[in-house]
């Protein structure tokens, strides 16, 4: 099979995760991706963004996860001969990516306006933390920090928790995902017009888009704040029983299910007081409190996976929870 992007050349000046994850996806789809790295130190991800698991060459597993399937070209951007070579590469490239703070590429003479002169058909993609304008533009656009200012930390966990970040670098990964969308749309448009484009994404706007459903709710309900569940929080806007529960020997996840059906299934009279669907939202905490006590005693989850039980004709979504090493669980 010929790969989707097999004749596309990408120069990736970006570091860390957001930009490089975009380069990774383009490489996955068949593009040739060349990382342009600073001579001596390279992508700062090689040193700064590390786990405590090192590979044989001393480099972090994280760097290798993000940068497989790419090539590396080192350059000293302060050296004119070196810069001239980069500019020559730029004339041959289809896509160029970077995620420096606003202003840095301009100082290097590699901003879109300059690059466009060299190669009018190039698609120039950039990721910033907070956009190109305004008083936050020069602040560090780092995943946890962008999660912090976006309100995202008030959506996960339960009411008693502090603001809780998502434990995966969602701002980086989603900004990278959106950049690939914009860059490929621009390549498609270039097939019609021959002209390149500037494509810009910020991690902040990406996290706002990620929250678009619940943020739209907030913007139209008189700015009511999300209230996380008191018990087993899984989604601030969804009714009981939605959540992950501890059982006698593990955990199970339950998505949407009518409470009366659960009452019959579990043979629990206390649950049958909640027949009005409005209560499943309004009294979700007491229902979930009740359920967590019942599950802890009654349910053994390992080896007993409850999948979409169509009991009494109503589909219910339940599953045991998996972890990376769930070797005891048979499916």
């Amino acid at each position, binding site marked *: 099979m010929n790969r*989707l992007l097999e004749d596309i050349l990408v120069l990736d000046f970006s570091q860390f995760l957001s930009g490089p994850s975009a380069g990774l996806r383009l490489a996955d789809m068949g593009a040739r991706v060349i990382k342009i790295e600073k001579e001596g130190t390279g992508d700062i991800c090689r040193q700064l*963004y590390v*786990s405590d*698991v090192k*590979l044989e060459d001393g480099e972090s*597993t*994280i760097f290798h*996860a*993000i940068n497989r399937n790419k090539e590396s070209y080192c350059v000293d951007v302060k050296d004119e001969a070196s810069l001239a070579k980069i500019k020559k590469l730029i004339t041959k490239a289809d896509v160029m990516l970077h995620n420096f703070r606003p202003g840095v590429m301009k100082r290097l003479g590699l901003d879109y306006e300059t690059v466009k002169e060299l190669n009018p058909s190039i698609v120039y993609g950039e990721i910033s933390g*907070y956009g190109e304008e*305004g008083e936050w533009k020069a602040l*560090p656009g*780092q995943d*946890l*920090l962008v999660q*912090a*200012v976006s*309100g995202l*930390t008030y*959506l996960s966990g339960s009411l008693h928790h*502090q603001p809780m*970040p*998502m*434990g*995966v670098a*969602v701002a980086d*990964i989603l900004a990278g*995902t959106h950049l*690939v*969308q*914009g860059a*490929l*749309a621009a390549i*498609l448009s270039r*097939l019609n017009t021959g002209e390149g*484009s*500037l*494509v810009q*994404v910020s991690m902040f*706007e990406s996290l*706002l888009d*990620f*929250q*678009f*459903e*619940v943020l*739209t709710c907030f*913007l139209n*309900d008189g700015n009511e704040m999300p209230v*996380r569940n008191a018990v*087993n929080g899984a*989604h601030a806007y*969804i009714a009981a029983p939605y*959540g*992950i529960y501890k059982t006698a020997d593990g*955990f199970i*996840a339950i*998505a949407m299910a009518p409470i009366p059906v659960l009452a019959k299934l579990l043979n629990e009279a206390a649950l049958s007081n909640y027949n009005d669907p409005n209560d499943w939202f309004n009294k979700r905490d007491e229902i979930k409190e009740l359920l967590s006590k019942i599950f802890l005693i009654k349910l053994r989850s390992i080896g007993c996976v409850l999948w979409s039980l169509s009991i009494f004709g109503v589909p219910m979504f339940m*599953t045991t929870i998996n*972890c990376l090493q769930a070797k005891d669980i048979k499916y």
Partner: protein
Amino acid sequence: MKLPLEGVLVLEFAQYLSGPCAGLRLADLGARVIKIEHPEKGEAGRKLSIKNLWLDDSSLLFNTINRNKESFAADMNNAEDMETLRRLIARAHVLIHNFRPGVMEKRMLDYESVKAINPSIVYTQISGYGSKGPWAKKPGQDLLVQALSGLAFTTGSYEDNPTPLGLGIGDYLCGNQAVQFILAALIRSRKNGKGTLLELSLLESLIDLQFEFFTTYFASGKMPERAHHHNAHSLLSAPYGIYKTSDGFIAIAMMSLQQLNKMMESQVLTQFSEGDVFSKRDEIKVVIADLLLHHPNDFWIQKAQIFDLWIMPVLNWKQMKTSKGYQVLEMEQEIASSKGGKKITTTRCPIRINNKKLYAGKAAPALNEHTQQIKQSLL
């Protein structure tokens, strides 16, 4: 401004979030996106509301996900409607569906059948767990896929139950990845006329989301462990996390303890070396947490800015909405319902093209709103 995907025709046989959020992004980038809906029931998402908020006959949620699209009513059990659909498929560039495996096959709208009608089409199917294996027909629901993918062990701290991410990340990410591959397939199709079958699943998307964790796990054989205190990323060392101050919360990203101590000026902190940041992660975090409680957010943020440290305040939506950093983005847009009158506010596309923010004020369609018009203009 001409949008990059003008001229691209997308048929969306999808419901709820994963498929429809892919359609939304394609529409924002200029594609014409037609939802194929049952003439009476419509897309199931029309009846799914959060906080009981509605606009006309459909939920606010549906209106959020499906703005800027058209609605074409067709009953897939009706032979005449099916013939119309086949003619529509012949004109389309992209087809997206997120039915469980087997459903489109039964309708004779599986890839092979569709390819026979339109060889260059980009046929995109989104499932929960892929089309093979013991989970293939299981409900591809976001929380369940989070549970099965290990994702719930990334968030919260060590003593917490496995904690899901509080948004439909599986649906959202899978839909967004579908857009990436659809566009790449369209590029190839434009060059050589070939169509493509794209298969995505929520489970694979959530495994991809955790690629740093899996790679580290495969290399070490050790499960990543959430920090006991202030966990924010289980692979990272102290001080990475969110901490309480005397009047709020701040987030501290990766930095050396020595850098952090420029701001903290603590004797206790100097007793730890850089070699301790993983092995004494929790001990160090507790020390930092105690120190931060002594002063308010502003005090710490000012210091952080003086030393250019990677620290930001933690904001809720109300605080965010009043911040200049949010307002300057002009992220909100107003949309009038298709029946006129009522307006809602929602967010715009997060991608800017040639310095332009992409707004699209067109409301979500009423069920069947564009059927006649589409028949006249396309068939």
